[in-house]
C-alpha cells in the first residue's frame, strides 16, 4: 500500500515535470515528436531506477555511517554521471539495436536535474531501499507521461496558426501551464 502511494504520488499527483519542475530542459527540448519523447522517457526511466538504487546505497552505506553528509552533492553527481557513461558503454557493446534508438539521449541525461532531484528527494524523505527504487520508477514513468502528452499536443500545434512571438518556447510553456492545471485534478488521490 505504502509503495502504491509513493508510485501514484510521484508519477501523477506530484508529477516531476508539471509540479516539481524537474527535467524541464528535455521537456521543452525533446517534446516535439512523439517517438522521440517515448525513447527519451524510456532512457531516463532506466537511468532513474538505477540512480535511485545506487545513490541510496552510497548514502546509507557510506555517507551516513561515516558522517559525511557534506559530500552528498559531490558524490551523487559523480555517481550519476559515471552511471550514465557506464550504461552507454554497456548498451553500445551488448545491445546495439537498443543503443541506436536510445543512445543519443543518454549523454543529455546527466544534466537532467530530475535525476539528481530524485536522489536528493529520496534521501531527504528517508526512503528505504525498496521505496527509493519504486520512487525512481514512478518519477521516470511520470516524466515519460508528461513528455509524451506534450509531444502529442505539439505535433498538433505545428499545424496551428500561432502568433510569431509565441512560436517555440512561449507557446510550449503556456501549454505546459494548462497541462499542469489539468494534472491538479489528480490531487486528492493520495489523501488519507
Amino acid at each position, binding site marked *: 500500500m505504502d509503495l502504491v502511494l509513493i508510485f501514484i504520488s510521484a508519477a501523477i499527483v506530484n508529477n516531476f515535470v508539471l509540479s516539481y*519542475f524537474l527535467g524541464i530542459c528535455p521537456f521543452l527540448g525533446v517534446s516535439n515528436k512523439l517517438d522521440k519523447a517515448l525513447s527519451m522517457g524510456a532512457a531516463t526511466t532506466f537511468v532513474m531506477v538505477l540512480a535511485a538504487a545506487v545513490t541510496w546505497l552510497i548514502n546509507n552505506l557510506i555517507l551516513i555511517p561515516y558522517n559525511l553528509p557534506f559530500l552528498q552533492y559531490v558524490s551523487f553527481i559523480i555517481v550519476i554521471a559515471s552511471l550514465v*557513461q557506464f550504461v552507454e558503454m554497456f548498451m553500445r557493446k551488448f545491445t546495439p539495436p537498443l543503443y541506436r534508438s536510445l543512445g543519443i539521449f543518454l549523454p543529455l541525461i546527466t*544534466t537532467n536535474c530530475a535525476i*539528481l532531484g530524485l536522489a536528493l528527494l529520496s534521501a531527504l524523505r528517508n526512503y528505504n531501499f525498496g521505496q527509493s527504487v519504486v520512487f525512481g520508477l514512478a518519477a521516470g514513468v511520470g516524466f515519460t507521461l508528461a513528455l509524451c502528452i506534450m509531444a502529442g499536443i505539439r505535433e498538433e500545434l505545428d499545424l496551428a496558426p500561432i502568433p510569431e*512571438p509565441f512560436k517555440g*518556447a512561449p507557446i510550449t510553456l503556456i501549454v505546459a501551464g494548462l497541462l499542469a492545471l489539468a494534472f491538479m485534478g489528480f490531487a486528492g488521490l493520495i489523501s488519507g
Partner: protein
Amino acid sequence: MKKGLMFELLKGLWDESPTFRQLLGMCPTLAVTTSIINGFSMGVATLFVLLCSSVIVSLLRSAIPKEIRIAAYVVIIAAFVTVADLFLKANFADISKALGPFVPLIVVNCIILGRAEAFASKHGVIPSFVDALGMGLGFTLALTLIGSIRELLGSGMLGQPWVIMILPSGAFITLGLLIALMNVIKDKTKAKLAPACPLACPGCEQGGVN
C-alpha cells in the same frame, strides 16, 4: 579593454539573458519563484556559485587536461553548491527550507557548467569574473521579476488574489508570456531571434563526464 568588460557585464542582462534568451536554468526559474524573496535568494545563491566556479575554472584552465575538464568542473561546482547550501542552512534556515532541494540542484543548472565551458575555460580571471557577474545578475533579475509578478498577482496585493499564479501552472504561463513579450520587443528593435533550443547548452552538448 574597459569597453570590453562593460560588454561582458551587460550582455547577461539583456542580449544573452540566460533566462529569457538562452532558456537556461529553467527548473529553478519555474520552481522557486512563488515569492520575491524566494526568487531573489535563489538568484543570489546561483550568482555566488557562478562567480566562484568561473574564477576557479579560469585559474585552473591550463592545469586541467582537456579530457577530464567536465568532470573537474562538475566537482568544483558541486563543492561550491555545498558551501552555499551549508551557509543558507546555518544562517537563513527559513529561506533554505523554502527553496528545498533546489539549492543542491544548482549543481545541474546549465548556466553554471555552460559559462565554465563556454567562457571561463577560455578567458582570464577578470573577464571570467565579469562574465559570471553579468550572467548571475541577469538570472537574479529574471527570477526576482517573475517572483514579484507571481507574488503580487497571487497574494491579492492588487485586488482579488489570482491563486493560479502561485500554482505550478502560473509559473509556466508567466514565463511563457514574458518570453513572448521579449520576442515582441526584440522584433521591433533588432532582427528576429529564433528561440534557442535549451538542449544547445554546452553542458548538455558535452554530456557530462568524459
